[in-house]
């Protein structure tokens, strides 16, 4: 297969951006109170005008659907970006943001917060801390155990620490009040965009943006991490420092998402993997398209989840239902091509 030319790539990114915008518009229209395109555009046009009447479309857009759409898109984009970075870092197209125990650590933090009946902001803070602490622990283990392939050590440490954290979550659920806390914990672990407010966004978006700036600035140099360590070092690269920077950035993105919406699996695994099959592994091409596809996918899944049935279907359930067959298909395609 020949790699796409720059013109073709730019064209496809343009199309993807248009699809993203239409998906956002579509998501603004769909819901219990249906809005027309005219409603949406007149409201958006007068959005910053303080004199504007607090009409129904205005409230629906500014308080309910707007934050939810921004959150779904940002989280999808962040998870896809983190997944792309992790896959490059671990030289393995089958890893995801969960690989370093980020999601489990963040989940344990949040579950403990719910268990201790902390306020919402403290629960989110604990999720963030839990995710970062899990990765710090795994990275520390990787540094202590020398003489093995460092990437393999990190992955294995991630798997074992992840299962320890999962048992911590199980214990907390076991001890939790089965009438009040347990449903909240279960609901949160499934992931949900229903409760996301402007305040949540104000906390999560700056963290995601900061992490994105780091990944974007390093978008070419990250490619060197796909080489064997000796090769990258022989090219003058300080591999440890680069790897640490990328881990911190990708973890921050993942933990900030988990903190406001719970665990949504599959996006970080399937989206970058599929995009890599299309545009190749070069990170400065992989990153923007993965983020557009991840954001749009998450947004579409959430919009379907909140509109096809009387009750909301948790996005984690839908991403898994769509992600599993897509992933199996991708594996089949990849293996057929490599043989």
């Amino acid at each position, binding site marked *: 297969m*020949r790699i796409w030319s720059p013109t073709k790539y730019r064209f496809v990114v343009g199309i993807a951006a248009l699809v993203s915008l239409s998906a956002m518009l579509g998501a603004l229209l769909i819901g219990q109170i249906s809005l027309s395109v005219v409603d949406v555009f007149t409201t958006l046009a007068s959005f910053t005008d303080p004199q504007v009447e607090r009409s129904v479309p205005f409230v629906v857009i500014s308080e309910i659907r707007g934050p939810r759409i921004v959150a779904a898109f940002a989280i999808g984009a962040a998870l896809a970006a983190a997944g792309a970075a992790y896959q*490059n870092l671990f030289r393995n197209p089958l890893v995801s943001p969960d690989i370093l125990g980020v999601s489990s650590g963040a989940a344990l933090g949040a579950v403990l917060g719910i268990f201790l009946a902390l306020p919402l902001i403290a629960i989110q803070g604990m999720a963030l801390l839990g995710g970062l602490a899990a990765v710090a622990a795994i990275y520390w283990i990787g540094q202590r155990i020398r003489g093995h392939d460092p990437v393999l050590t990190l992955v294995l440490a991630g798997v074992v620490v992840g299962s320890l954290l999962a048992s911590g979550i199980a214990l907390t659920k076991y001890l939790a009040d089965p009438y009040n806390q347990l449903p909240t914990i279960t609901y949160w672990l499934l992931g949900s965009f229903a409760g996301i407010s402007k305040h949540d966004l104000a906390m999560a978006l700056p963290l995601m943006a900061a992490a994105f700036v780091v990944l974007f600035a390093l978008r070419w140099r990250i490619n060197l991490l796909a080489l064997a360590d000796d090769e990258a070092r022989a090219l*003058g690269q300080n591999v440890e420092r680069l790897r640490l920077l990328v881990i911190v950035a990708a973890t921050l993105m993942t933990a900030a998402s988990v903190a406001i919406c719970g665990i949504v699996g599959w996006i970080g695994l399937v989206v970058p993997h599929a995009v890599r099959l299309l545009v190749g592994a*070069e990170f400065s091409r992989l990153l923007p398209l993965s983020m557009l596809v991840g954001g749009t996918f998450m947004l579409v899944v959430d919009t379907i989840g909140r509109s096809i049935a009387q009750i909301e279907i948790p996005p984690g359930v839908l991403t898994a239902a769509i992600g599993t067959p897509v992933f199996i298909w991708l594996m089949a395609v990849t293996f057929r091509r490599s043989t």
Partner: protein
Amino acid sequence: MSLLGADNLGIGYPRRRIASSISFAVESGQALAVLGPNGCGKTTLFRTLLCLMPAQEGSILIGGACINTMSPADIARQIAYVPQNAAGFFNFSVMEVVTMARAPHLGWFGAPGPRDREIAMGALSQVSMADFGDREFSELSGGERQLVMIARALASQAKCLLLDEPTASLDFGNRLMVLDTLVALKSRGVAILFTTHAPENARRVCGNDADRTLTISRHGAVTISSTAAALQPKALAALYGIHERVFAQPVA
């Protein structure tokens, strides 16, 4: 002044010295073959020369300067490494693989520009792979991959190439193609160091009077001599621990 030299170099680990008293100097247009049985320390020697592991004694000189005074990027601009059997983990294009060699010339947040791509293209032409620029690296044959890795080393604009087993697991045709590329590069002033399991490779690339062959025995004894002397049946028999009679039939 030599491009790359070692002065009384000792390689290995603090508790396990692999070889000592290695001294050599390679100049522009010169080749040095490193021969020795499996596990004798050929790769350790290369990793030490590339500053990927510390020297146990002695010093390494690049362009007359001691390697300890240089940054990793400085070193990477002077000597380039061609690893053994580069695997294609991901679907990078050939051009993207070669352009990675521009890393030591760019800042942390930099990306290669037109000039860097021009240099990469020039490097690909030098190994006759200019038409392969937008092909996927992982789909190339073993010999083509090896040529691309050599092009990547050239694209760093290093004057000295270190190749670890450049012909390992290549078929006869690919092996000759890679060896002839090395000879052609040598004639254009590139200094070449390579390890090999096949003495006939040393003869093919290091045939000139100026070229040298370095041997490391299983016990860490190091010799450096003309290639012709190193390839004497008696010397080879001692190096690989076999009987001289094996060479009754000429090797190549």
